[in-house]
């Protein structure tokens, strides 16, 4: 099989197409295949790991996160065989808190992501498909939510809400999702606009399909990569926002999450002590960061899947050299596979995507509506 890098027959001048540089792709290039991409594999592995721990965590936790295991000491204990991640100031087991907090944090984030993405699809696709006054109204609504600062709004809401009641994880996720849907809706509206006049949509309309059916079965399937990206982003947003709210103490600090662990560590000035109590604040922060990173890595995979330019750019020079690709100027010549073979880049992409998506939906933003 052959891999052709932007060879332009006209450039040679004599009209004869030059001999194509034939390259056998070896292991280096296999990294490009979507399911085998290292980034995606790491992202998938960590993401699944976190979700499994969220489900079974509280059952395998060694202790009750609330129990003070000793009343004699007021000093946090460093990690030991008895307490793998040490203890807090009131001798609670940090590992147990981490496991209990993980369930709440991930549940809130996923609930927020699911609801926000549903709202984004609902509003974005409807606005883009119907246009007119409905579009104006929905776009206005989305823009209002985009410019209104989310965290302060949530702080005010939870400030009033959690004084009288202790909100459940699902309710917290629901409230967070209200501030998280607008960006996705705008991206999906733009994509729907570009699809509205495609032949297959027009013909579906011509044979008298209902609007909702066209949206569900003609337009939505083509938006799936964007829906996935949007979901991942809102889950990341949900984790970050929930952690921030718990860290601030607007969500009851006795409701264990990674944010409330940081709240207690910060209240006890764990980072300011002469003997830094790192085992108290590093695990929850690291967990938030790793969970977010794993989702972002998955998203890199989707981005590269949508935009072939990014995928080709991911080839490091060494990999390119090993694959025997000639060194070229950086400009104007995006490596493109013309002949697809069993291990070619093109073969890794099942099905052709509509070309308009090819600009990384969330990478470059267009403010004009």
């Amino acid at each position, binding site marked *: 099989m052959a891999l052709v890098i932007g060879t332009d027959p006209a450039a040679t001048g004599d009209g004869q197409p030059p001999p194509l540089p034939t390259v056998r792709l070896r292991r280096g290039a296999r990294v490009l295949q979507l399911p085998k991409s290292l980034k995606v594999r790491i992202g998938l592995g960590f993401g699944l790991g976190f979700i499994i721990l969220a489900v079974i965590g509280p059952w395998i936790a060694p202790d009750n996160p609330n129990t003070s295991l000793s009343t004699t000491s007021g000093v946090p204990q460093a990690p030991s065989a008895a307490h793998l991640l040490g203890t807090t100031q009131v001798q609670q087991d940090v590992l147990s808190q981490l496991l209990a907090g993980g369930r709440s944090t991930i549940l809130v984030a996923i609930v927020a992501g699911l609801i926000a993405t549903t709202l984004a699809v609902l509003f974005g696709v409807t606005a883009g498909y119907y246009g007119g006054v409905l579009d104006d109204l929905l776009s*206005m609504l989305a823009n209002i939510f985009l*410019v209104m*600062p989310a965290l302060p709004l949530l*702080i005010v809401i939870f400030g009033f809400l959690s004084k009288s009641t202790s909100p459940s994880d699902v309710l917290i996720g629901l409230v967070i999702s209200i501030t998280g849907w607008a960006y996705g809706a705008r991206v999906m509206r733009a994509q729907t606009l570009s699809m509205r006049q495609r032949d297959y949509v027009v013909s579906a309309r011509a044979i008298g399909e209902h609007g909702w059916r066209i949206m569900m079965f003609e337009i939505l399937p083509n938006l799936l990569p964007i829906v996935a990206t949007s979901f991942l982003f809102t889950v990341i947003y949900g984790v970050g926002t929930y952690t921030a709210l718990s*860290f601030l103490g*607007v969500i009851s600090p006795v409701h264990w999450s990674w944010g409330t662990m940081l709240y207690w560590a910060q209240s006890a000035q764990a980072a300011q002590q002469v003997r830094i109590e790192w085992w108290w604040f590093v695990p929850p922060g690291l967990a938030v960061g790793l969970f977010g990173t794993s989702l972002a890595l998955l998203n890199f995979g989707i981005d590269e899947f949508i935009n072939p330019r990014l995928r080709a750019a991911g080839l490091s020079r060494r990999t390119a050299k090993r694959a025997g690709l000639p060194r070229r100027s950086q400009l*104007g*010549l995006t490596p493109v596979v013309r002949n697809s073979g069993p291990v070619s880049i093109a073969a890794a992409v099942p099905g052709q995507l509509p070309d308009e998506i090819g600009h990384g939906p969330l*990478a470059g933003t267009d403010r*004009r509506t």
Partner: protein
Amino acid sequence: MRLIARRLALYIVTAIVAITVNFFIPRLMPGNPAEVAIGHMQSTVTPQTIAALDLQYGVNTHTSLWGQYVHYWDQLLHGNLGISFSAYPATVASVIRAALPWTIGLVGMATVISFVLGTLLGIAAAWRRGSWLDNLLPAMTFFQAAPYFFVAILAVALFATKLGWFPQNSGYDTIALNPGLSWGYISSVLDHAVLPALTIVAGSIAGWIIGMRNMMLTTMDEDYVLIAQAKGLPKRRVISYAARNAILPSVSGFSLAIGFVVSGALLTEIVFSYPGIGYILLQAIGSEDYPLLQGIFLIITFAVLAANLIADFVYAFLDPRTRQEA
């Protein structure tokens, strides 16, 4: 300029929505905020204060909802955000006014540094694609995914507590110095700002790098860039052609990010006990100071709206296509 007019209309509507939401939240939520407030005021509470609180939160009052709403607007338009419970008898407006310069100074500088540095690195990463910078991207993603304030806690532990290079907290040396235009005070302020600013930059720079890199990859494939190189223009000129056309989304992102950076840095300020908006926000939450909480929400909203408007002007100035579109 029709575009600017449309955006302006959006911001005005957003401001009205924010103010209205702010009015309704205490009324929709369970519980009696006025009672909580009275419980938190240590000194004697006059009947007038109670009546004012009842009107403010719509409990035990005979004024109609519409009447309360009009009253609320009237107060707001006179710059009256209410009395802070925790700093009683100081007004909310004065508490916020004291904290605002700290936040604007710290977060503003950090955001500009992050934007400039990140965009330059993004240009470099795109120009030398496949270089070591690309391999660094996943690592930087972690800094972006980890909460700002966690990076801040780590920075305090490592650079302030362990190594002692920077002060651990507050905006200046509160024990030895009095605020004033002395060299000692100014240098103390700068000294205290370095570490918080660095953590904000570390937390936000990856977004600029990735955004600029990806956009550069697209413009670098344009014909005019290829021609510029074919003509033999110096490399710097060629890069500038590609970069200039790739920077527009970053500029627009810059405006949107101001809102996010302000809210993210709230928490960084709390970690450093930096005397800005974030710090008074924490106090407001801790002492159930609802008027202060709501005042902060409104101030941040207005700041974000103003930043967006300025960004729209900048964008229309930079990109002729925006001017013609409407």
